[in-house]
């Protein structure tokens, strides 16, 4: 791996990452697709564009372009996931909005855990076609059953006894 090859690949991947940040923030603000799909889908599409762009550059190295793009993108996706779906961070924000920045344990449990966050997850299951709500309760769709079966198998493989 010669220095000029390294020099060509790295900035292309880094600029690609900055473009990804800008594109995802615009798409997230539009709110037309689910935030998780927007964040991951934009990363994959921008990466494809970066690789095509890099192929027109003088002898850019594929691995360097890829790692310069994916390392910061994965850090961003990890932080995004925490901000978007973390129950713990949401509890902090909920407490911040309460008088004296405190609340009863039972109130947090009833208002956020048993209502808001639980209902949000039930909606996510339905909106993503994983489950349907029938008169007898929640029933998994074929897609939901396949996903649950795969996740259970992976949990057994990695000795994850209980999740949540």
């Amino acid at each position, binding site marked *: 791996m010669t220095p000029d090859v390294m020099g060509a690949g790295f900035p292309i991947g880094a600029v690609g990452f900055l473009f990804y940040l800008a594109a995802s923030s615009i798409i997230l603000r539009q709110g037309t697709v689910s935030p998780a799909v927007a964040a991951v889908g934009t990363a994959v599409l921008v990466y494809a564009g970066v690789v095509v762009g890099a192929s027109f550059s003088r002898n850019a*190295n594929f691995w360097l372009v890829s*790692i310069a793009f994916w390392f910061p993108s994965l850090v961003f996706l990890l932080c995004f996931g925490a901000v978007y779906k973390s129950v713990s961070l949401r509890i902090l924000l909920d407490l911040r909005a309460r008088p004296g920045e405190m609340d009863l344990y039972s109130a947090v449990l009833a208002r956020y855990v048993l209502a808001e966050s639980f209902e949000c997850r039930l909606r996510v299951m339905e909106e993503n076609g994983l489950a349907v709500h029938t008169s007898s309760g*929640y029933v998994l769709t074929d897609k939901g059953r396949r996903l649950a079966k795969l996740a259970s198998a992976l949990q057994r493989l990695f000795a994850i006894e209980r999740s949540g």
Partner: protein
Amino acid sequence: MVPHLNFTMSGTVAASFLVALSLPLLHLLVVRIGCLRGRNAVQFLVSVMVGIAVWTSILLFVAPARPNSGTEIAIGAMILGAWILFFLEIWALLSRGYTLSLLIAVYQAGRPLSAKELAHAYRRGEGLEWILRHRLAGLQSAGLVRQVGDHIILTPQFGRAVALTYRATVALLGLKATG
């Protein structure tokens, strides 16, 4: 201009990919160590630490993988780091994914579950209150909240700072709903 990409890989980069890709296999061995049974987060940490130790040893002692410059070490570290983050995302989803756990609860029940039954069946019968107990324990040990009697209180400096940073990040990302 003819499109062309260079796919050559130095020994350091190749070794970094090899160690990174073998991390799930290493984790399969670590989860079978008796004294770590049931301690999922510790198992993951041990796998990552062993992976980093193996990577360092290969770069130090295997001649073809020896780096020629600090830049090559940094690139190798980024390759390993990127794969660790990717593996962490998948592992976190499997071990802490809330929606996935609800899905598995319905699957394991083998029959339709009402919202109330689902809330009770969560985490093999521990119920949704487990989430609050578990997350509060984490928040308390991180010094973000404290519990006084029946009340949960945001700590005045660290807790407030994290809550404000979180709120600013949500606004920056333009997220309409979180948590």
